[in-house]
């Protein structure tokens, strides 16, 4: 099929960007969206034009590296990550707008590539269990009810892509933060640091300049790993409860 692509081009963080139109022809339905961009880039590069910078690595929906706003929707029209989107989700002759994640906390590095290091900072503010290597007890010493393990996994599935921030009208990273907090809060190993973790991460997300959450819910809609809105309530509960209680 033939398509018109309107792609955000921005040479670097300091220079203003703009949407530029590209025509692309004979794209197969089985190509992934990123492979389609590869094809375009190969053409640009062989004509000595600058290819479009975008991030990707695993290309199977697990590393969280990819992320484009396609026609206004983070990760585009199908459920899942940008790299799992295939051209069969589009039709011949369509015009597709492609932009980077939009959030002041994620400055554009170039074209469609943004800087998501603030998400790492949130984890550094407490998104872990302090268990230095060598100090661990026998793995089966502490049974974990299956349901808790499953719930922990559901939250731990977050890939840190940042689509939630891109979708949130407040530019809040609460879903991401809540997912990590929920992962560890569901496990007995995560209890000792539960309150300090929740508070530390929420404070960090505020200090880093992310917006506050007002329960809009746009984040869950685009989340490729279906992290539910309830995790945010759970995080708030841990933040509000006094440090001593569970």
């Amino acid at each position, binding site marked *: 099929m033939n398509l018109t692509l309107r792609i955000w081009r921005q040479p670097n963080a300091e220079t203003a960007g703009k949407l530029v139109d590209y025509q692309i022809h004979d794209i197969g339905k089985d190509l992934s969206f990123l492979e389609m961009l590869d094809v375009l880039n190969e053409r640009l590069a062989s004509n000595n034009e600058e290819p479009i910078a975008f991030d990707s690595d695993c290309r199977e929906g697990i590393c969280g590296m990819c992320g484009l706003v396609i026609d206004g929707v983070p990760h585009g029209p199908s459920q899942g990550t940008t790299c799992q989107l295939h051209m069969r989700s589009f039709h011949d002759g369509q015009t597709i707008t492609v932009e980077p994640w*939009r*959030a*002041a*906390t994620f400055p554009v590095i170039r074209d469609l590539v943004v800087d998501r290091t603030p998400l790492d900072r949130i984890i550094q503010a407490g998104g872990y269990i302090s268990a230095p290597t060598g100090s661990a007890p026998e793995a089966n010493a502490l049974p974990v009810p299956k349901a808790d393990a499953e719930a922990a996994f559901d939250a731990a599935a977050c890939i840190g892509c940042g689509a939630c921030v891109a979708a*949130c*009208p*407040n*530019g*809040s990273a609460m879903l991401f933060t809540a997912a990590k907090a929920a992962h560890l809060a569901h496990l007995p190993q995560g209890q000792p640091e539960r309150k300090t973790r929740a508070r530390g991460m929420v404070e960090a997300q*505020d200090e880093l*300049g*992310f*917006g*506050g*959450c*007002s*329960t*809009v819910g*746009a984040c869950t809609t685009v989340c490729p790993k279906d992290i539910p*809105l*309830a995790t*945010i*309530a*759970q*995080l*708030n*509960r*841990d*933040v*509000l*409860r006094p440090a001593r209680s569970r």
Partner: protein
Amino acid sequence: MATTGLIMLSYLVAHMIGNLKIFAGRQTFNQYADWLRTMGEPAIPRRTILTLIEIVLVVCVIAHITSAVQLWHRAQRAHKSDYTTRTMRWGGVIVALFVVYHLLDLTFRVANPVGAAHDPYDNVVASFQQWPVTAFYMLALIAIGLHIRHGITSAMASLGVSHPAIPLVSNAFAFLLTVGFLVVPFAVLIGAVS
């Protein structure tokens, strides 16, 4: 924000129930209005409780608006703004404008066609017999309903309560509250209360 919102909300619930007494007739309604002021008497001087409520409400409004502005500010710093948050904020502003007008109308009675000092029943009826006022009230009440609909869900999440039924319950709650308020101007308009 959640706390202040919910306090104001509980006032609204009480207020709505109070308003519905208008269907019980002029006397009941006026007595009720009077009771508001004489609550606790003689143990407590006249108007103490009402004044306390008023103070709490004023503090809430100020605190609520302050955090709303902060939230707005942070979102702007994070470069964001779109439909849902806009509705919440403008919805809030409409609520605020409404309250100002409403106070002028029925509390201070400066904007009221009758302005009877001890007959709120008359005042209410007089107000709602003017269709532009009724229309304005109705619009404002719907805005309030929408604000509350999202507000309850949001307040629950902020307070760390999560339950799959919350969206449903808050929708129902906001709906009942809005209807509860709306029936009064509507009743006056169709002449059921006069």
